[in-house]
């Protein structure tokens, strides 16, 4: 992790007393910021209040990290839980010596009382615009209270019954709480409750967006590639080598059961991509004629349709626009691979990301952002790859990375974060960049990780994590 610290662009705050692993915030700005108040244009400060109940520490740590990783807050962390004591209000009980504990205790009886016990001026002085208190209420209920520090009152309070710590669904449930905090404070949807699929040693793994909970999801003996999420987050597709052929499988997240996509198995099929209608799967098929893009109907397991006819060129790596109307893809029709776009039925094929013939390097692996406004891809720059973003409306292309080799970008559901493969730390691993602030963090520290696919938001109704 020390290596990654040097890459941080936005100095934020001190490390919390409970160490957050994979924390990529800078150590430059150590110390509590006293007297900094909210200024327009600066990200609002948020503090996750400490508490005495140790059982909640992991929840606090996860939520604090999620809020930090949202890149929408200045995360303010207190030097230590004991150094700040509330003196404004007398502690209602022996355990309520500190603001967090006091709040938690009080919310159990009724949230209103808690507000009076939080020292708003103090947190305002610390630079906090919001304070998040986490406490327990009887019968396994976790209570999250979001304080509006500037307004001096409770913004929102919500309760959730979390699975036990050992439960595979625990972390995702906590991530959902973090997303609710984001919704309650800034009114935006978060990406805490998401996972990233990736390939390591020919197998597909899933990992929480904060880098925790790495889990094997495809355990076949066959070498796997190119995982891709279904838009509802309940299924994903991937490719496996079978005697030189590429077979496509669609796997259910909850049950782990998988089915082969129809009409595949006798050719080299790869790079599957779900259409937003959830039933159409686009993919690339390599034959002696070259590589072309096809679709198949997953619902009825039928109806192979060919979208491109390359003859002397390859067409591959389809990605749907979120409205399902268009498909961006890679084509070698002009010689080098470049990014093209067509209607979802294969008509109206045209160049998408402009390039200078003979000057611009080859471009690969497009991924259409969930908001529809951008297409990320990687392009050869001086013999290595860099991640670029195409503005769909203006067709302007801008380079996002410049350090090392960077490739295979995948958008987070908020369309501002992106995971990609980079060797900037000396070996190929997954990194996450916030396109708006440029802040970069390592998703994993293990090497040999590639072909990431960021999930949609995994809602409560979405079955448990892969």
């Amino acid at each position, binding site marked *: 992790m020390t290596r990654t610290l040097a890459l941080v662009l936005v100095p934020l705050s001190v490390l919390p007393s409970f160490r957050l692993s994979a924390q990529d915030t800078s150590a430059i700005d150590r110390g509590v910021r006293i007297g900094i108040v909210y200024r327009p244009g600066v990200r609002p400060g948020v503090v996750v209040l400490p508490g005495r109940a140790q059982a909640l520490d992991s929840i606090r740590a996860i939520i604090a990290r999620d809020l930090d990783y949202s890149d929408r807050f200045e995360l303010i962390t207190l030097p230590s839980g004991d150094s700040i004591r509330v003196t404004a209000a007398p502690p209602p009980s022996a355990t309520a010596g500190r603001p967090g504990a006091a709040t938690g205790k009080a919310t159990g009886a009724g949230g209103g009382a808690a507000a009076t016990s939080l020292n708003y001026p103090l947190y305002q002085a610390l630079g906090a615009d919001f304070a998040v208190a986490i406490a327990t209420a009887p019968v396994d209920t976790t209570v999250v209270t979001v304080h509006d520090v500037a307004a001096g009152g409770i913004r929102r309070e919500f309760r959730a019954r979390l699975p036990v710590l050992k439960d595979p669904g625990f972390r995702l449930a906590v991530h959902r709480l973090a997303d609710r905090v984001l919704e309650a404070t800034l009114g935006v949807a978060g990406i805490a409750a998401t996972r990233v699929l990736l390939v390591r040693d*020919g197998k597909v793994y899933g990992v929480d967006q904060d880098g925790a909970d790495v889990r094997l999801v495809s355990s076949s003996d066959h*070498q796997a*590639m*190119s995982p891709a999420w279904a838009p509802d987050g309940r299924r994903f597709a991937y490719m496996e*080598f079978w*005697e*030189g*052929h*590429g077979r496509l499988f669609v796997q259910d997240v909850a049950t782990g059961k998988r089915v082969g996509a129809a009409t595949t198995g006798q050719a*080299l099929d*790869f*790079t599957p991509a779900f259409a937003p209608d959830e039933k159409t799967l686009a993919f*690339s098929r*390599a*034959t*002696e004629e*070259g*590589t072309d893009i096809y679709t198949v109907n997953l619902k009825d397991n039928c109806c192979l349709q060919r979208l491109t006819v390359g003859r002397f060129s*390859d067409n*591959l*790596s389809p990605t749907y626009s979120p409205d399902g109307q268009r498909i961006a893809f*890679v084509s*070698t029709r002009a010689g080098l*691979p470049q990014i093209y776009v067509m209607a979802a039925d294969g008509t109206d094929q045209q160049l998408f990301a402009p390039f200078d013939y003979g000057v611009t390097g*080859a471009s*690969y*692996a497009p991924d259409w952002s969930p908001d529809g406004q951008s297409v990320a891809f*990687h392009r050869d720059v001086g013999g290595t*790859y860099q991640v670029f973003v195409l503005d769909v409306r203006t067709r302007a292309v801008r380079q996002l990375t410049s350090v090392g080799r960077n*490739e*295979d970008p995948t958008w987070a559901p908020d369309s501002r974060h992106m995971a990609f493969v980079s060797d900037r730390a000396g070996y190929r691993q997954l990194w996450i960049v916030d396109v708006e602030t440029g802040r970069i963090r390592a998703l994993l520290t293990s090497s040999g990780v*590639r*072909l990431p696919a960021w999930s949609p938001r995994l809602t409560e109704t979405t079955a448990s994590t892969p």
Partner: protein
Amino acid sequence: MKRFELLVLGGLVAAAVAACGGGAKPEPPAPQGPNADSIAEAERKRQDSIERAQREAREREEAERVARQRAADSLAAMGRTSEAVKTLLGTMTHFDFDKSNIRPEDIAVLDQKVAILQANPNLRIRVAGNCDERGSDEYNLALGNRRATSAKQYLVSHGVDGGRIETVSYGEERPLDPSHNEEAWAKNRNDQFEIVSGGDVLKQP
């Protein structure tokens, strides 16, 4: 091949001569009266014929043994030939970075395969295209496919039935050399040729 046939033929002739030399020629009966000498003579002849028969049987066995040995030797020689042909067939072709056209220096290698395929009409092969790690992971599947296809096209354009050649691509997924340097990359940009069927004994073209 010719030599093998000659050897087999030679063996057979030797065996046949040995067989003919055996008991096929009975002694003509001597017109003699029944006397002690003639009885002794008959006994002696009888002994002689037994010995001769035994000797002939030994010779026959020896000839058969030699013939068998020669046949085995020539089979082994043929096996060695077959292995040599397999090695030739398995010779890889290589490619420039991000290219799938056959290099001039690989044309002789492919011509050899054309000859082998024509000399062994039951032989079916699989061509696997491979790439180095520098290219994009997924694009390399398409590139490897082009590499395998270009070899197949060459073989087919030189008279080999396309139905005998499968093509597959492993992209950069199965590098021969996992190192990260030019030498390894050059090695890993290849077409590999493997036998699908009909390759138990291969004739030299």
